[in-house]
């Protein structure tokens, strides 16, 4: 072949970076595409919740007494729990609040708390995992024991117990009672029980990375420990960190819903999937739609996140054993 053709061929056969290859693997994965779409739909629903409120000229907390049958225990009038053109998902028994709006605002509450808790847990987990894995020795021993102790706690029970206590402490220091104080407490508590999962994985990765040649090379060149940790090792951790984030979000969503269901979560009247589940239990026989909505929503969202997380992990490291 002529040199020009060879040169053109050469430019087309480009080297692909690992991230590029991972991305291509991900986009070829059917499961990843479907689950990513589902996750995106839920995120859009929660981000655009105020838009839906504006469209339907309603709010999630507005009572609609005319949609309820007063003589029949204040249950919604009509089939499927009051589904109609005005109320796409029907209405809540006893209050008449629009369930579609409560569903999207609930998605907002549950998702934002879960994402915030995941973020905080990730930051804590990455820092502790890095320090523990890099320094080894007594520091590693101490931090590893700490991780094990936190993991050993029955987290839901403890969260149930400690949330009101923490809240009282904060209120004692002058914060207002209400969701403004309760939500940060929930995020803190969820993050406190979530960071060890991330820390352990990060620690394992750091231990395998710190003996690699590029780290040795940097060390030989006189790099400080700080440089080694944050400029050499941390950039190579993004893959496992991404995977743990994707797999931790559904755990946080479920944990937040469980906390609210058990009474230690967000306070009324803020809409939340766990709160919807809790109030719907009394009506499951006479108005099953009311239970089905948050139940199926939680199920699909958590499933989608889990599948997406698995797909991301497969894409980033196809050699990892399932």
């Amino acid at each position: 072949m002529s040199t020009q053709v060879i040169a053109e061929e050469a430019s087309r056969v480009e080297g692909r970076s690992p991230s590029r290859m991972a991305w291509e693997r991900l986009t070829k994965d059917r499961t990843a595409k479907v689950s990513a779409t589902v996750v995106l739909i839920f995120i859009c629903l929660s981000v655009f919740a105020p838009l839906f409120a504006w469209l339907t000229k309603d709010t999630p907390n507005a009572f609609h007494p005319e949609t309820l049958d007063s003589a029949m225990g204040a249950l919604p009038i009509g089939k499927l729990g009051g589904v109609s053109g005005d109320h796409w998902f029907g209405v809540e028994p006893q209050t008449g609040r629009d369930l579609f709006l409560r569903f999207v605002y609930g998605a907002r509450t549950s998702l934002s708390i879960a994402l915030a808790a995941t973020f905080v847990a990730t930051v804590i987990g990455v820092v502790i995992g890095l320090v523990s894995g890099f320094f080894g020795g007594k520091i590693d021993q101490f931090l590893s024991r700490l991780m094990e102790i936190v993991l050993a706690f029955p987290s839901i029970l403890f969260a149930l117990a400690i949330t009101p206590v923490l809240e009282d402490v904060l209120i004692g220091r002058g914060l207002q009672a209400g969701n403004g104080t309760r939500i940060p407490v929930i995020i803190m508590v969820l993050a406190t029980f979530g960071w060890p999962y991330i820390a352990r994985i990060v620690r394992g990765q750091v231990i395998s990375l710190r003996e690699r040649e590029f780290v040795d090379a940097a060390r030989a060149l006189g790099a400080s420990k700080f440089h080694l940790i944050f400029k050499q090792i941390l950039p190579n951790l993004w893959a496992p960190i991404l995977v743990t984030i994707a797999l931790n979000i559904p755990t946080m969503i479920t944990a937040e819903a469980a906390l609210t269901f058990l009474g230690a979560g967000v306070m009324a009247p803020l809409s939340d999937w766990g709160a919807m589940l809790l109030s719907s239990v009394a009506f499951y026989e006479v108005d099953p739609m009311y239970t089905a909505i948050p139940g199926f929503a939680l199920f699909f969202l958590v499933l989608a996140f889990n599948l997406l997380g698995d797909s991301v992990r497969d894409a980033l490291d196809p050699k990892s054993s399932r």
Partner: protein
Amino acid sequence: MMKLGRKTGSVIAAFALCAGVVVAVPSASAATEFAGPAPAVKGATKGGTLNIFDQSDFEHLDPARNYVGGALDFYRFFTRALLNYRTYEGKTELLPDLAADMGTASENATVWTFKLRPNVKWEDGSTITCADIKYGTMRSYADDVLKGGTTYAKDFLDNPGNYKGPYIQPSADLPSITCSPKGDSITYKLSQPVPYFQSIVAYGSFAPIKKSKDTGANYDNKPFSSGPYKIQTYNRGKDLTLIRNAQWDPKTDPTRWNYPDKIVLKFGADQAVIENGLISDSGLYKTAMSLDTELVAGLSKVVGVAKYKNRFLQYQSPYSRHYLINMDTVTDVNVRKAIQCAIDYNTVILAAGGSNVGSPSNSMIPSSLSNAYRKFDICGRDVTKKPEAQTAAAKDFLSKATVKKTDLTVAFRDKGTEKARASAVGAALEAAGFKVTLKEYPVASYYTAIAVRGADEPDVIQGSWGYDWAAATGIVLALLDGRTMTKTDAKSNYSRQNDSAIQKLFEATDSMTDVKKSDKALGDIEQKTIQDLATVVPVYMQIANSIFGSKVGGVQADGGYGTTSPAAAYIKK
């Protein structure tokens, strides 16, 4: 649990019960026909275990601290008093219990003497003495240790020496109570004429307590029995088991029955669990009932359906559901009027369960008390005709306020439909421009917590009240008279009402011995506090909907306490 108010029963009083129950109070001179036993309940058989499933434990079983309707009815299984109510076949009477007669009044109803029955025994076989009855009342003065309960003893007994209770003054005496030398009668000297004193002695501060068994604040955990049952085990918050008390002699007691062998209470299940369990009538629920759980979500399945007819009990209860506005924290009357106008009667009643659970009412006094009940407008309209929120009027009042308090805390209990109702009020208040925080309290300490003055006081309190006896003195005095309060404890005056003009009107009723006159005066006072002071927003009068297992008989609406009662219950074979 519903809180109970006070009772007057001078001659005949009418209750707001569907069956048209009349409380008969026999005249003081009829003495001999008060022997036990109570007349047999039709079809009742002895034996079996009655199961009771409640959402929450009782706040107090100590007679000096018990002031909640369902608990007052229930604890008669092991607590006897001087006089007591008996509801039998739809009729309610006040009868001698430990007393042998209905009491004799003298000196313009400031001195009352009751003959006592001989040979009535405690659960350990010792005799219940006049000294025990006197000690029970002396102990009720100990506010420091025994928080809660009625204040009748302190309110009405003469106390020139300022007696403070046996824990602070162990050797002091309360001279206004005297026992006859043979111990066969007891005399009370009152500080003012109280023609309805007979109704008052049915209350816990006049129940006997054996001094050697007085465990102070722990008495709640194991009251010593004088009734047909005694406590076998009591795990607070979990379960309570009553077994037969062999020392109770039915011939000395015309007010009680003892059909079941055992009564087992379990606390802690959710509203939905208990409702569905009782409707399903399976397992333990076949022989069960509930004292604090009414049908709400399950109402649509049961109302009017033939197969539940025999085990469904619906009656107009004397309990009012209302909102009290804290005058100490919401000081501007215009803000309080705005709150009154903002509340939406429709959404609150729907949140409670709809028209089968309550009917809108402008007063806390039931309409059956014809001399006291007034029909008047709230926020310029008839609440039965226009129950919707008057949001425009609310905003108007709020703009006229000088001390604009727009941040409000709404207090409610963690129970049943309370959260839904509080949410309804919260939403209605927010529509009028307020910023609302809903504050949930645990059931077991609600009434104590919301009465605390000086710290953490809620602004709007979700409350309920049933009269202690069928006259306005049983409602208005306890709920609105500023004299019940202390500096740290609002007692039952949750709205902290203490307006000087209103108090003058209250003082004028002290000397009224004629029930018609006092009913009328108190009805007027209630109207003034609602319309002019805006301290209360009455919303609805409760309709009770109870369901019980198919093997339980004898469940009735108690005319004395207005609750679904296990007193005459039996297990069908």
